[in-house]
């Protein structure tokens, strides 16, 4: 393995300073980063291990009703926090549908947000990949691309962002708190991940040295708890990334949708907020027709980037189903097979 420096700063300020130099990257649980390093995809000169920083592993409820999740909270701890799961059930369901129990125990909130694409050509260092090496080309474009993007892609890159967690988060207007060279700032999660355009080498809006310290769910996010689901279609029942996923959250008042939130996963380089679809649902009765209409709106701009036209139709159906499930109400307990079309199947004991 390539030789690299390893530093373990004690404070956030030290971490940001240590990571500011070129070639430095943050190391959280390493479930993504170490794989990338072993494969030679990422060859950092310095690892800045943030796992020992104080105060980043709390789940707090703020006075205004927001939730603030420290960047080092593990995916499992967050999903299993009873209060959190009750308030943001779709987020908990999404987390529990991701990866495997072992990975969820290790993986952190910050790492999940910033995990890299699973595009096979990105991982295969013998392939041309604009994301890995700016300007080298994109071997996925004419390659094995049935899993690639159908929204927001460019000729430079057709990769998707693979996170489940981010999908309900973006639907709920999550905010990312960042500590950087110039101090603290925050941005909407929707602004964190970048569409590729002509510079797919930049995944996110972060500047070198920027550290995610927390993710916040604004007060309104709690208002969807009664009608919020995540649905993930995948190629095996567990331990697989989404082919396409969707998160639907509704605020239903007097039998009408007061407000709808909808986002798709596995379709673009970012968790895809479907605002046009949300708009058509506002103020209407939750019916199959309305959901169909929303599904068409959500995918209006979709186009295949390869052998993946089916993902557009699948995404539409996921939108309809996720909205239907959300309208039916959040189940009292997260199903044993979270986010699975088979969630209702009896006899399932784990995922």
């Amino acid at each position, binding site marked *: 393995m390539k030789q690299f420096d390893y530093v373990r700063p004690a404070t956030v300020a030290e971490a940001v300073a240590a990571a500011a130099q070129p070639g430095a990257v943050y190391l959280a649980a390493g479930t993504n980063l170490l794989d990338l390093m072993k494969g030679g995809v990422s060859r950092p000169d310095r690892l800045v291990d943030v796992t020992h920083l104080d105060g980043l592993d709390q789940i707090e409820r703020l006075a205004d009703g927001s939730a603030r999740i420290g960047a080092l909270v593990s995916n499992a701890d967050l999903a299993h926090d009873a209060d959190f799961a009750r308030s943001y059930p779709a987020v908990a369901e999404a987390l529990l549908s991701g990866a495997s129990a072992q990975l969820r125990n290790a993986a952190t909130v910050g790492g999940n947000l910033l995990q890299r694409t*699973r595009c096979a050509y990105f991982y295969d260092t013998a392939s041309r990949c604009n994301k890995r090496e700016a300007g080298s080309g994109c071997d996925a474009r004419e*390659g094995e691309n049935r899993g690639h993007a159908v929204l927001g892609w460019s000729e430079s890159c057709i990769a998707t962002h693979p996170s489940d967690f981010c999908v309900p988060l973006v639907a709920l207007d999550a905010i990312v708190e960042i500590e950087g060279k110039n101090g603290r700032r925050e941005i909407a999660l929707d602004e964190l991940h970048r569409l590729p355009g002509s510079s797919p080498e930049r995944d996110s809006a972060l500047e070198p040295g920027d550290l995610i310290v927390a993710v916040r769910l604004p007060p309104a996010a709690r208002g969807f708890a009664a009608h919020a689901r995540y649905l993930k279609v995948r190629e095996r029942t567990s*331990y*697989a990334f989404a082919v396409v996923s969707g998160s639907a959250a509704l605020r239903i008042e007097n039998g009408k949708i007061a407000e709808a939130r909808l986002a798709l996963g596995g379709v673009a380089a970012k968790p895809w907020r479907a605002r046009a679809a949300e708009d058509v649902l506002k103020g209407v009765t939750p019916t199959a027709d309305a959901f169909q209409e929303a599904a068409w709106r959500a995918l209006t701009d979709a186009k295949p980037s390869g052998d993946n036209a089916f993902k557009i139709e699948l995404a539409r159906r996921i939108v309809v*189903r996720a909205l239907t499930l959300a309208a039916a109400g959040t189940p009292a307990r997260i199903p044993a097979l979270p986010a699975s079309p*088979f969630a209702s*199947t009896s*006899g399932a004991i*784990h995922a």
Partner: protein
Amino acid sequence: MPELNLSSAPAHLRHGSSIGQPLTRRDGLLKVKGQATYAADNHPPGMLFAVMAVSSIAHGRVTLLDVAAAKQHPGVVDVMTSDHKPQLAIDPEIKTNPFVFRMEVLQSNEVRYANQPIAVVIAETLEAATEGAVLLAPRYENLPALIGLDAGESFVPPVVGVGNPTENHRGDVEAGLASSAKQIDAIYETPPQYHNAMEPHAIVASWDGDNLSVDMPTQGLMLSLGRIAELFGIAPDKIHIRSPFLGGGFGSKGLMSGPPVLGIMAAKLVGKPVKLVLRREQMYGPVGHRAPTRQRLRIGADGEGSLTALDHHARTLSSTFDDFYEPAADASHTLYAAPAIRTSHDAVRVNTGTPLFMRAPGEATGSIALESAIDEMAWACGIDPLAFRLKNYAEVEPITGKPFSSKALRACYEQGAARFGWAKRPLQPRQMRDDAGLLVGWGMGTATFPALMFQAAARAAIRRDGSGVMEIGAHDMGQGAWTALAQIAADAVGLDIDRVEFKAGTSDLPDAGIAGGSAHTATAGAAIHSAGAAVIAKLADLATGDERSPLFGAGNAGVIARDGRLIRRDDESRSESYAEILARAGVAEVEARGTGAPNPAAMEEYAMHAHGAVFAEVKVDPDLGQVRVTRMVGAFAAGRIVNPHLVKSQLFGGMIWGMSFALHEEAITDRRSGRIMNANLGEYHIPVNADVPPLDVITVEEHDPHVNALGIKGVGEIGITGSAGAVANAVWHATGVRVRRFPIKIEELLTQL
């Protein structure tokens, strides 16, 4: 190596003989405590680490390796390349026997497939060797690569599988089709698959002068020994291979492949012990795989649903430099009583590592196509798939006309169907839903696998203290040889299993034959059985010839060996312990050898196969197309069951693999570069726990007097066959959509649901 301490604790209950008892694995405790030493767990003093650099192109030549850069890296000791390596005694391209496959051991700078080894970096640490391999930064002359089943002109290979004829026929298929009332003509495709044993291929090799010590997982100790001996030009008795445990092999550790040879070469080059372990992605190339197939089935049936003809053609592929042809169409030889059968194969050559045997080679690929087509035919005839199979039940082997040595398939159908509740299945597809509205479908498939026998030898001894020894270079790949063969050994020498020292897994022991073809228990078991009989006969001679023994003169009546005593057959009150016999005779031990081998006369007369019937239930989301298996029942008849626990595990494993075949497994090959794009267990999908439904296995009684002395047929591979088709047929029954390309993908269902 420390002595294996195989424990039978917790104590086993014994009822009579050992064979047939559900003993738990004797190596189980070692394994759960992490004390079972797999090859890569060895670490002799002074050992260095070797890491292969592999090619990223599929065809061409290595033109440059930055050896200097690699060597400069701290910890790197040497870099083995085609220009800098120990000489082999023979050209590895020469096929010295039919079980030798060509391998890449740096004999030239030619690249013939992606992931081919092109250099080996040897270093003091794994990390340094790994980085050294990266620093080589190979340059290539890239030549156009041949990829996929349509890569070029097809040809008819001389043989398929292991020496099977490429074409077989009986009766007039075209006439049978012409006269039929209903026909099916359909094409099925199966993808390339990789063995993906949990334990990667690994070797720890050390030379001491001309003596070579090797720790390496192998399914064929003696074949490996012979190959190493000829490649390195040393006598076999100078080589010692230890392979006490394999973390799975599935065919990929049967014959010597290139990487372990590179490990031995590296040890020779640096004059120190060397460990070489493949990375997961490096297992997608030099160690074999299951080739893809495209199979066309044409079937005819008369107005009553009796088959009139069965024509099965399979296209497959082999490498550009060697020959292994997946005998997929041969699956149609044994199961269904068509008066006219034709099977044929053709192939193309592509830039791939040579395909190889992979658990149920030919049977697995052929079975899913055949069972799908039979299902389609049953539907075309308007007959229940089980009734259709029973209507076309083969009373003799269809392709040869030979009687079966035994065949309890009817009982498998009956018992499996009863357990599953098959009688309630609606004939029409898309009739069943569960409470949640998911589509439910039921499908079935017939399982079959030949009952093979290879050659094996064993050595048995009875010691002065009355204990026994059984020695055989047998292989435990996880299937449970340490337990099942020890059970056979215990019975063979008439001792409790704890009184027999069972030695296996090293190359200094008698040849147990290859652990493949589902034949290991039968073959090694037969050798053990005969060695035991022979040593007991010697012991009996000592007693019955000695007038001081209570058994004196019992020679004609015969004796029985039981619980460490020889007992007069016609008078059980007269007996003597082994220890007493040996003490009086004044010998430390008696020993004898025995062999196991196929019986050519029986093979000439009978068709020998294991059979089974698998029933599967799937649920399919009617809008989203995701499929999940929710129930499986398999009933199998495989002759004598040596250990019901282990046999069930084998059958479970096979059934899971079958479901994997139908729904999950596929190596995705980049259509331009020939590289496998999902060469890791995250993306090469095999079922996880949440995919595996409650499995129910029934072992159906079957006595076979012809297959071998013990009546064992083998269960290692049969579980895949039938199961894959059962799942595929259940998907059709749930949805009404017939998918003929495997694994069944969401997009195939989505648009048609």
